């Protein structure tokens, strides 16, 4: 067994081979196959046994997924459940009861149940701890009222992770509790939120007397801030960089350059090369970050990575329009639709330019990320705070 411990990649390969020997993806029904894969601990390689994993190093996940892809196995359509897989699952694993993990993790991973996130509110954007959505205890249930915003997949989601205020008399960070909310509750009203591109990729969600059993509380009453932060840290780490040179937006712009000599101009050339170098360095920075994470050296560099990603996507898409000139003045379609996923490459340059503006706002604004780096990494003094220790109820809004 000493050999297996020193060769987790080999151990994983053996597990997959054994599973595939008894489960033929060519003949099994898709959902049965996925459930069996979960039950065999071959879903999330780093999750514990019994919850879809084998407790192996997380760095092996790409290997695992590749082995199944090479065998022609169906995947769990991860792009349709980004919030569930990236944020809800690790949080449920970390803070959930045995019953919660048993109930939620398998259908989440197989894609049977899509999840969304009910965190942001009109008055609680960067200042997430300021949420005003109220949850009031009523016997074994909580009654929730409030308004959430910037919810992707709310119209397809079966469940939501939700932060609500359970005690307004405590200071803002202390009065929050984290719930798993059933989106089928009749008090949940999902309305598409149209954005700058013309699409409604996000939703507003109005909660009116929504009833949540106390068994769907995640973590202790009043412990919502800690649980929510764990969720957000998962979000920021999840924004990785591409492993292959010129993947992503820089590749699109480079292709335009190569295919359209008639559009070239020395200034745009200089700007393209500068951004090409920065994108390549960002790729390497992402690789280095993943190497650190694989060694168990996670750091707050995920925030720096996200800052860079947002800046580059914005500068590159802006440059692309200047390069295109006349074609950049034209747009594909302003019609409001509700897309399932965000797809930069499948749209025109104008869409990319507009959509990229959100990259420095969603999932923590660039300003908040700079605060995090300055305070948590560099140890610089925090901003003077007037709102930290007073009851939330008394704060001006």
């Amino acid at each position, binding site marked *: 067994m000493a050999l297996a411990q020193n060769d987790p990649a080999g151990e994983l390969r053996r597990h997959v081979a054994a599973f595939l020997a008894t489960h033929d993806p060519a003949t099994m029904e898709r959902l049965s196959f996925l459930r069996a894969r979960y039950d065999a601990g071959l879903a999330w390689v780093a999750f514990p046994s019994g919850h879809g994993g084998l407790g192996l190093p997380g760095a092996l996940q790409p290997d695992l997924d590749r082995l199944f892809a090479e065998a022609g196995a169906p995947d769990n359509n991860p792009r349709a459940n980004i919030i569930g897989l990236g944020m809800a699952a690790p949080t449920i694993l970390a803070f959930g009861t045995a019953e919660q993990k048993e109930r939620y993790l398998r259908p989440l991973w197989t894609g049977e149940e899509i999840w969304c996130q009910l965190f*942001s509110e*009109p008055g609680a*954007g*960067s*200042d997430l701890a*300021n949420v005003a959505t109220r949850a009031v205890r009523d016997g074994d249930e909580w009654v929730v009222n409030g308004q959430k*915003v*910037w919810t992707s997949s709310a119209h397809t989601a079966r469940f939501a992770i939700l932060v609500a205020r359970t005690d307004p008399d405590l200071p803002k960070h202390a009065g929050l509790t984290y719930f798993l909310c059933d989106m089928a509750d009749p008090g949940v009203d999902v309305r598409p*939120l*149209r*954005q*700058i591109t*013309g699409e409604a990729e996000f939703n507003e969600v109005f909660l009116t007397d929504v009833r949540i059993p106390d068994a769907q509380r995640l973590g202790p009453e009043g412990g919502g801030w800690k649980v929510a932060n764990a969720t957000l840290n998962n979000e920021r780490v999840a924004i990785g960089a591409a492993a292959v040179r010129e993947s992503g937006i820089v590749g699109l712009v480079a292709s335009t350059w190569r295919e359209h000599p008639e559009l070239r*101009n*020395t*200034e*745009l050339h200089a700007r393209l090369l500068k951004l090409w170098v920065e994108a390549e360095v960002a790729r390497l920075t992402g690789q280095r970050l993943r190497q650190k994470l694989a060694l168990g050296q996670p750091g707050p560099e995920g925030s720096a990575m996200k800052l860079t990603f947002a800046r580059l996507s*914005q500068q590159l898409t*802006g440059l692309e*329009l*200047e390069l*295109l*000139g*006349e074609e*950049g*003045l*034209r*747009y*594909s*379609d*302003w019609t409001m639709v509700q897309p399932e996923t965000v797809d930069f490459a499948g749209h025109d340059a*104008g869409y990319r*330019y*507009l959509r990229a*503006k*959100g990259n*420095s*706002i*969603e999932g923590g*604004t*660039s*300003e908040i990320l*700079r605060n995090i780096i300055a305070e948590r990494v560099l140890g610089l003094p925090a*901003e003077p*705070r*007037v*709102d930290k220790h007073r009851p939330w109820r008394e*704060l*001006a*809004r």
Partner: protein
Amino acid sequence: MTALNLLYTDIEDDLRATLRDLLADLCTPAAVSAVYDGDRSLVAPLWKAVAADLGLAGLLVPEALGGAGASAREAAVVLEELGRASAPVPFLTSAVVATMLLLNAGDDLLPAVASGERTAALAIPLSTAPHALLAAVATDSQQRLTGVVTSVAGAAEADTLLVPASTADRIALYAVPVASASVAPVVSLDMTRQLADVTLDYAQGRLVLADAEPAIRAALRAAAALLASEQLGVSRWCLETTVAYLKERRQFGRPVGGFQALKHRLADLYTGIESAAAAARYAAAALAAGDLDLPVAASVAKAFCGDLAVLAAEEAIQLHGGIGMTWEYPAHLYLKRAKADQLALGTPAEHRAQLAELVDLTMRAPGA
């Protein structure tokens, strides 16, 4: 180079106030936003109010020819306000570009265009820089025009198109009624200056100018010089709206506008806008005065103000946070206008490349 007045005259301030009042009444963000969904009911009445009722269609036309006899300085102020309101009216295309061409030709169409009764547009891609290769359709011996001109601004609102057409050795300009052309509106990045593709199929033209290239370039240069003022207006809206929002918006128990990192970015934006004002005013004044420095002034202004307006709109979106990304809030209208304006009439990169020629800073060796 130093004598031009870079400030606003009292007359210009009065003009601004009048136009701003009218736009505040008629040109609401909701009505402007509706043009993106194909509801253009705002456009015609607004243009009538601006062009005919306020008489701005004839701003650049001498009083003797039925116009207001004003100068490019006043036209610049009009464009500042139209930019500030993101107004979807063909002032630049009809009252500046087409009007300058008709003035140059002494054309009979001028009084009707000056009164706002008729609207005209030059059939050329909006992206064309004043010094760039000019698109021109083909012509035959009977002055019939054939060809396609893509991405024309103002064509959808025009009743007369001014069409550059190639003759044996030069470019001539013909007037063509829109009824004789096919004008296909294009889904545009900036729907407040919606483009159209114009197709001519043996359309009968009327000769306006036989040797039109110098006049067309002059009109495009004037438009570039004045578009800088529109970009200034866009920038000012962005700064003022963002500052006002950040004074109200609270996070972490404080007005967001009190956070120093944002204050410094807004201070830098203010600095940029004060600079843009100088550049735009100088270009307008040089145009009004017929100053020989106009080519430099126009390219400097279009390059600087074009980039600055995009920065201003991008900062407005970012500093508003999520609300700035919504369809409901008007910030997106200004980002689209700013980005489209940057690409219109030559990108900043094209204008800087042209400046290299004008001020002897090329890549080429001397004498090469």
